[in-house]
């Protein structure tokens, strides 16, 4: 028992040290620094397209790197790949397990991944003569909450077993396991340079990881409930998190702390999803209350709202060219706005 006491004392000491070090560089607030910046214009986006085809709740969406195609996942047991310019469905991939929680598309556009309560990440080649299952990545001990391809040969996954994992798609085996969270991992986002990624979990923390060596470099605290959504600011030097505590936070990686918070006393719905406009100035956040709110990332003011869904907005995404935003909902529809 003696060793446990010593370890606890050392842990508490280190936490105090970290808190003091963060305080020491906390010389101002972003609100103060941004007070001189012109307010973002009131953002009024129109619903340009409604993509109809799913028959049940949509749980995930991911834009292709070509800015035109998109994959969506629904608990109707299908992945649909859309041509968003025409609104047509290009491929339908039937899933072995309909309890899907996420989907993603490889940068090449050749592969899509999906997974959920089956604890597996299934990789499908959509460019084959007919969509063909390439791999079933089976080693997580909990549900698959999120995935992102680094390339056609590597994918990162986040799981309810509290770990994230990097997989080699040529062998189907785990390459690196990222262990440090003490709650279900709910989301992940890859840095623009692909050398690191950030994860959000039910332990209310976000963690920054080195992709190659598996080490956790930084931990960001402050949320008081599950972190459901996470995104990198386009510069790669900050991250935005969305939580069941109804707030979003911006953490700066180099200052190692929260630099801005996005909340409204009137809002008491959890944040389910988050995405940023191409300059990083606008944050789009999907909420349990069927809306998507648009925040000015610098001034932390609400500058718009996207309403039109009849149920929770579960997923959201902006394509790389920044030309629009897509929302996916439990009402079974995807809507594109700009």
């Amino acid at each position, binding site marked *: 028992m003696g*060793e*446990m006491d010593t*370890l*606890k004392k*050392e*842990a508490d000491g*280190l*936490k105090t040290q*970290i808190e003091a*070090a*963060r305080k*020491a*560089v906390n*010389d*101002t607030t*972003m609100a103060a*620094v*941004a007070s001189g*910046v012109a307010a*973002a*214009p009131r*953002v009024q*986006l129109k619903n*340009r*397209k409604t993509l109809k085809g799913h028959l049940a709740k949509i749980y995930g969406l991911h834009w292709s790197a070509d800015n*035109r195609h998109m994959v969506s996942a629904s608990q109707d047991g299908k992945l649909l790949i859309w041509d*968003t*310019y025409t609104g047509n469905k290009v491929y339908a991939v039937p899933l072995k397990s309909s309890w899907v929680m996420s989907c993603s598309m490889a940068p090449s556009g050749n592969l899509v991944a999906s997974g959920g309560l089956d604890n597996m990440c299934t990789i499908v080649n959509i460019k084959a003569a007919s969509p063909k299952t390439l791999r079933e990545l089976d080693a997580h001990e909990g549900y698959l909450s999120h995935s992102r391809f680094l390339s056609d040969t590597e994918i990162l996954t986040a799981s309810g077993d509290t770990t994230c994992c990097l997989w080699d798609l040529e062998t189907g085996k785990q390459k690196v396991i990222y262990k*440090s969270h003490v709650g279900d991992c709910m989301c992940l986002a890859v840095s623009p340079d692909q050398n690191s990624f950030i994860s959000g979990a039910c332990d209310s923390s976000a963690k920054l990881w080195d992709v190659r060596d598996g*080490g*956790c*470099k*930084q*931990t960001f605290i402050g949320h008081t409930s599950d972190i459901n959504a996470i995104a990198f*600011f*386009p*510069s790669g*030097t*900050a991250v935005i998190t969305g939580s069941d505590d109804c707030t979003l936070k911006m953490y*700066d990686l*180099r*200052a*190692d702390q929260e*630099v801005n918070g996005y909340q409204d006393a009137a809002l008491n719905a959890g944040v389910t999803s988050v995405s940023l*406009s*191409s*300059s*990083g*100035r*606008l944050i789009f956040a999907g909420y349990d209350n069927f809306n998507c709110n648009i925040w000015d*990332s*610098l001034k932390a003011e609400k500058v718009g709202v996207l309403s039109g869904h009849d149920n929770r907005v579960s997923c959201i995404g*902006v394509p790389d*060219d*920044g*030309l*629009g*935003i897509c929302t996916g909902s439990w009402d079974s529809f995807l809507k*594109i706005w*700009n």
Partner: protein
Amino acid sequence: MSSKMQSSNNTAHARRAVQQLRIEASIERIKVSKASADLMHYCGEHAKYDPLLMGIPASENPFKDKKPCTIL
């Protein structure tokens, strides 16, 4: 699991947690004023290329339904 194994698991877990905290305590941090200024600068530099901020002319909007024009 015997209680001896369980307590040694707890110790191993606690040791890993301390190791992790040591890593996190040792990083260099920059001032929030500099971090905020850099983020603001990034937004400023990229604002004019941000279609959702600037608006998109109808002719360049790939999602806008193209309706035929009627000359009255």
